[in-house]
C-alpha cells in the first residue's frame, strides 16, 4: 500500500457503549476493535523511517514493528513484539495517556488524527488473551542474584518483568490478597477489567516471578530482614502513595464520607459492586458529591453513577482546563451525566442526628494570579456559598506517601512530604534499596510508575553486576577467612560488604577497616571504622561517600587487633571501552 492510500484511511473509532447504557453497568466502556478494524487502523501507519512515536513512549515499545505485524494480520506476533519491551500491554493500551506520549509524536497527528497506537496495543493484547495462545516464557539462565519487590503495582510489575528476563530470582511482596496494586484496587472494572490484570500477572508468574500475597513489608518483615534473613541482594520499593488526604473541614468523619481510596478499594478490589455475592458492603447514595478533579475523582464519580446514583457532582476548586484528569476521562464522565461544579470548594459537611450526612456546603472560587505551577490560583469569593444535598461524599483530593515502610526503615531518606529520595535511576540513600512510582514522585500516572520501575531495574542490574574491578593483595591470613561479598564504586559512594566465612573457627576482635584513595602515592583516608567483634557467618557493610567523582581507584585496608595488615583490596572503576 502506498503512503498516499494510507493517508486517505480515516481514523477508526472504537465501538463504545452508549453513555446512558454504560452508566448503569460495570462493563468496560469501549468494546475494542474487531480484527478488520484493527487492520484498517494499522494501515494508517506510514512506517516512518525515524519513528517519533517510540521516543514518546517511556518504555520504548517498538511501535512501528508491532503495527506492521497487525497490518499483516499477525496479531499474536504483534503482541509478543510489544512484550519484548512492555510486560503489561493490555493495561497500558487502556490506561496510558497516549495523547500526550506516543500519539502526540505521531506524524499523522500533524494533520488530523494520529494513529490509534493505544487502541491497537489494546487490541493485540486482548487478542492474545482471548486466543488462549500463550507463548512459552523465555527461560533465561539464572544469574544467582535475588531481588525482592515490595508492592505489585505497575512499577513493581515492570521491575519484576525486566529483572526476570535478566536471570534474577524475583519475588514480589503484596499486602493484599491479589496482585496489581492500584490497577486492581484503584482503577474501576469499567476502565480496566480485573481479568486483564490477573492475566498479565499470570504471565509474569509463568515467566518465574514469585508472588507472595498477604504480606505487609514493614510489619511481617522489615527491609533489613529481607537482606539479612531472606538473603536478597536488592530490594525495590514500589508501594505507591497510599495515604489519603482529607480536607480537615467540619463533618468529615460523618457516616457517608469516604476517601476515594476506600470507596474504590471496596468497590474494585473487594468487589462491593457485586454485593452481596461479595461480602464487602459499600454505601450507595442518590446524590453523590465527589471532591477533586483528577482521574481518581472521575473514577469515583462514575462508579457512584453505576451504583444507582441519581445525581453525581464533581466539586473542584479550579477551572475545567486546570483539571488534572485525562481529557478523555472528563469527557466520558460528562457524557454519562456527571455534573461539574467547578471553581467551588467544600467548607462544611452537615449531618443528621444519626451521624449520617445530609448536605455539603461549598464556597465559590474565581481565578486569580498564576501560582508557582503556572496555573491561575483559585481565590475564594467572600460570602458566596451554596449547599448541595448529598447522601454520599467521596474525597478525591490526592494521596500522600504512606509512611509504613519509611517509618520502619529509618535509614531511608525521605523528603518533607514523606516521599523517598532517589537518584534518577531510583537508587535510595540505602545501599541496594531502590524505589520508584508514587512513593517517590507523589501521586502520578500508571505509565510514569512503569517507567520508574524500568529505570530501577536498570540500576539494580548495574549495581549488582557493576563494571567495577576488584583486586586483592597482601592477605596475611588465609584467603578463605574473609570473603568479599560485594565491592563497588557507585556515583555517590564506595561500597563494601564482607563476610567472615562460617567455617572460620574463631571470632575476630577489633578489626579495623579503612577506605582511602591514593593519589600520587599519597593516601587520603576517607573512612575508618572498627568492628569490635566479628563472628563467623556475620556480614558487615561499609559505605563511604565519594568526594571527587574523578577518583577511579580506592584502597581498602583491613587491620587486625595488633594493627597488622590482614588484607588490602583495590577497587577500581573499570574503564569502559
Amino acid at each position, binding site marked *: 500500500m502506498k503512503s498516499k492510500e494510507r493517508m486517505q484511511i480515516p481514523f477508526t473509532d472504537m465501538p463504545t457503549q452508549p453513555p446512558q447504557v454504560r452508566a*448503569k453497568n460495570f462493563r468496560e466502556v469501549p468494546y475494542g476493535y474487531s*480484527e478488520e478494524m484493527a487492520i484498517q487502523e494499522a494501515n494508517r501507519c506510514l512506517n516512518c523511517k525515524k519513528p517519533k512515536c517510540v521516543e514518546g513512549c517511556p518504555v520504548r515499545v517498538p511501535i512501528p514493528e508491532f503495527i506492521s505485524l497487525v497490518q499483516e494480520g499477525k496479531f499474536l506476533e504483534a503482541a509478543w513484539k510489544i512484550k519484548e519491551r512492555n510486560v503489561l500491554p493490555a493495561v497500558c493500551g487502556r490506561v496510558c495517556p497516549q495523547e500526550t506520549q506516543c500519539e502526540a509524536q505521531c506524524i499523522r497527528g500533524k494533520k488530523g488524527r494520529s494513529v490509534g497506537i493505544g487502541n491497537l496495543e489494546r487490541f493485540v493484547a486482548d487478542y492474545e488473551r482471548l486466543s488462549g495462545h500463550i507463548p512459552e516464557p523465555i527461560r533465561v539462565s539464572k544469574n544467582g542474584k535475588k531481588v525482592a519487590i515490595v508492592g505489585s503495582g505497575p512499577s513493581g510489575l515492570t521491575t519484576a518483568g525486566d529483572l526476570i528476563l535478566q536471570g534474577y530470582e524475583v519475588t514480589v511482596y503484596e499486602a493484599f490478597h491479589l496482585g496489581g496494586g492500584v490497577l486492581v484496587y484503584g482503577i474501576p472494572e469499567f476502565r480496566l477489567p480485573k481479568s486483564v490484570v490477573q492475566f498479565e500477572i499470570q504471565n509474569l508468574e509463568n515467566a518465574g516471578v514469585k508472588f507472595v500475597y498477604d504480606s505487609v513489608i514493614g510489619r511481617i518483615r522489615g527491609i533489613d530482614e529481607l537482606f539479612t534473613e531472606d538473603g536478597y541482594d536488592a530490594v525495590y520499593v514500589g508501594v505507591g502513595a497510599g495515604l489519603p488526604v482529607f480536607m480537615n473541614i467540619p463533618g468529615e468523619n460523618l457516616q457517608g464520607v469516604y476517601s476515594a481510596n476506600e470507596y474504590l478499594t471496596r468497590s474494585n478490589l473487594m468487589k462491593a459492586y457485586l454485593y452481596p455475592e461479595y461480602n464487602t458492603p459499600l454505601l450507595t447514595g442518590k446524590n453523590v458529591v465527589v471532591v477533586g478533579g483528577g482521574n481518581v475523582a472521575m473514577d469515583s464519580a462514575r462508579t457512584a453513577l453505576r451504583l444507582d446514583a441519581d445525581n453525581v457532582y464533581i466539586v473542584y476548586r479550579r477551572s475545567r482546563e486546570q483539571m488534572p484528569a485525562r481529557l478523555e476521562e472528563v469527557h466520558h464522565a460528562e457524557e454519562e451525566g456527571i455534573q461539574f461544579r467547578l471553581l467551588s470548594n467544600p467548607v462544611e459537611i452537615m449531618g443528621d442526628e444519626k451521624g449520617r450526612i445530609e448536605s455539603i456546603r461549598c464556597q465559590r472560587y474565581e481565578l486569580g494570579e498564576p501560582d508557582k505551577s503556572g496555573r491561575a490560583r483559585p481565590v475564594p469569593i467572600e460570602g458566596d456559598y451554596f449547599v448541595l444535598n448529598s447522601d454520599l461524599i467521596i474525597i478525591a483530593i490526592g494521596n500522600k506517601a504512606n509512611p509504613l515502610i519509611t517509618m520502619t526503615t529509618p535509614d531511608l531518606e525521605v523528603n518533607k512530604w514523606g516521599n523517598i529520595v532517589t537518584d534518577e535511576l531510583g537508587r535510595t540513600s540505602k545501599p541496594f534499596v531502590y524505589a520508584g512510582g508514587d512513593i517517590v514522585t507523589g501521586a502520578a500516572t500508571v505509565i510514569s510508575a512503569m517507567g520508574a520501575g524500568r529505570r530501577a531495574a536498570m540500576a539494580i542490574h548495574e549495581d549488582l553486576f557493576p563494571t567495577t574491578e576488584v583486586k586483592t593483595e597482601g592477605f596475611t591470613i588465609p584467603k578463605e577467612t574473609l570473603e568479599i561479598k560485594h565491592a563497588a564504586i557507585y556515583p555517590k559512594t564506595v561500597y563494601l560488604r564482607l563476610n567472615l566465612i562460617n567455617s572460620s573457627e574463631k571470632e575476630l576482635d577489633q578489626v579495623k577497616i579503612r577506605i582511602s584513595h591514593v593519589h600520587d602515592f599519597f593516601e587520603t583516608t576517607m573512612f575508618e571504622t572498627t568492628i569490635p567483634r566479628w563472628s563467623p557467618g556475620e556480614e558487615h557493610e561499609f559505605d563511604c561517600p565519594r568526594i571527587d567523582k574523578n577518583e577511579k581507584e580506592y584502597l581498602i585496608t583491613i587491620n587486625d587487633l595488633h594493627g597488622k595488615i590482614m588484607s588490602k583490596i583495590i577497587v577500581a572503576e573499570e574503564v569502559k571501552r
Partner: protein
Amino acid sequence: MSKWMNINGRRVVFEEGETVLEVATKAGIYIPTLCARPDLPSFGACRLCIIDVEGARTYPNSCTLPAREGMVVRTATPDLQAVRRNVFQLILAEHPSYCIICKEHDECEKVRHGEYKAGRVIGCFTCSNKEICEIREISEYLRIKEIRYPMLYKNLPLERDDPFLVRDYNLCILCARCIRACQDVLGYSAIDLTKRGHDTKVGTISEVSHLESGCVFCGHCIDVCPTGALIARGSTWFGKPDKSVTTTCNLCSHGCQMVIDVKWDKVVNVHPPYELSARREYCVKGRFCIPALVNGRDRLKYPTIKRKLIKEEQHPVSWDEAISYTAEKLKSFKPEEIGIIIAPSLTDESVFILSKFAQKVSTNSIVYDEEGIMSLQSQGVKAYVTTFNSKIFSKLEGLEFLVLQDIYESITSESAEVVLPTTVFTEEDGTKSGEEYMRYSINKAVEPPGEALPSWAIFCRIAQSMELEGFSYNSIEELKDEIMNSEPLDIPKISKQNLEYMGIPLTEKVEEFRLYITTKRAINQSEGKGEVDVQI
C-alpha cells in the same frame, strides 16, 4: 337468642363453644398469653391467660374455659397481675432475658442498632425477633423489672444443619405452638416434645434431622413461634418490615395467597396471611425460595444484543435499540418462520398480549413444551421469540434468530441474539388464573431490578415498533378492561410439582432448595423408593 357474659364490668355477647379468651379478644379486651393462638387448638401451657371468675376458687386459664351465660369475669385484678408476674418470671428465668431487666436497656437500644446478627441468641440485643417479640410485649405489659429466680441458660447447641430453618431451643418456652401447628393443624408429626422433666425440649423423634423426620418445610412452626427460637434462615434479622404486600404466588397455578414482607425495597420474607381462614399448607418453594429467586444478584437488568468483535459476547444496549433491532429482524421473516413461545408463569395480561402479538406476526404460537418446539422446528420455523428459557434452544437446527425474555443469565441467554430482562411476579401488577377458573390478583411489592419490564409491556413495545395496531395502553387497567371484554383465553397451567419458574429451575438459583431436593432424594432412595421424584 344471643348469650351474654360480663368481662371487667362490660356486657359482652358470645356464641356457644367459644372460650373466654376468644370472647374477650373479640370484644377488644387484652388478656396476655404466650401459648394460645386463634388458629391453634387450646393447650393451656403458659398460664398467663388466667382470669378471675366470680365464684371460682382458683384462677382458671381463659384459653381453655368455655364461656357460660351470665359468667362474671375480671382479667386484670392486682392479685391476678401478681400471680401472672410470678408465672412470667418463671418463664423468663429459662429464657435469655438479661436485656429485659438490664438497667442500661434504653441506652443500649440507642447504641446497638442491631449489629448482632448471628449465632445463638444471648440477649434481646442479639435476637432476630427483637422488634416483634411477644415476650417483650408481655414483659412491658406486666412491667417486669427483675427476675427473682436464678436464671438458667440451657446451653443447647444451635441447630442449623437443616436447610431453611435455624433453631435455637435455648429460647424455647415450651408453649408447644409449633407442635400443635405441625400435628393438629397440618397433620404431620415432624416434631414433638422429647425427653422428660427438666430436659423437656421440642425436637424430632430420635433426634434425626428435620429432613429425615418427615418435615415438609412449610414453615408454619416459624410463623406461630412467640420467641426467636425458630427462625427462617435468610428471612431473619430484618426486624419490622417497611411494608407487607398481599399477593398471589405464581410459582404454580395453585393460587396460594401470600404476604410479602419488604424492607429497603427488597423482598425479605414470605409468609401466609395471619388470618386463620387463609391458612393452608404452604409448599417449601413458596415459603422459603422466593426471596433468593427475586433478589439474585445475577438477575438480568438491561437488554443485550449479541455481537462479535474479537469474540462473540452480549453487549448491553438501550431498550430502544433492543426493541427496534428485534422488530426489524422479525420483519425480515415470514409469519410461518416465526415461533412464539409462551411461558406458563406469565400473568394473564402478558399471555393476552403475547397471544395477540402472535396472531399478528406469526402462525406458530405455543405454550412451552419440548415436543411442541421440535414440531415447530420441523415446520421450518427459523426465528423464535421465547418467554421461557430452555436448553432446547441451543440444540435447534436451522435457528436464525432467537429472542429470549428472561430473569437470569443462562446458557440460553448466552446464545440468544437478543436478551430482554423481565420481571418476577413480585415486581408487577396483574391477574393470575388459577385452578378451577379462580382469578387471583398479583400485586407489586418491589421495584424490578435495573430496567426489567413486565412481558406485556415488552411485547407492546415490540409490536408498536413493528407498527402493529392495538398495542398502545396508557395503563394496565386499560389492558385489563380489554381482557374482560375479550374471548376467554386458554391460560397455561403450571402443576404444583413443576420446579421451574420461567424455565429457571429453582434448584439452580436457591442453594438451600438444591440441598433440600438432593437430601430428600437420597433419603427416598435409601428407603427403597428408587428414583422417585420428591413431592414438593
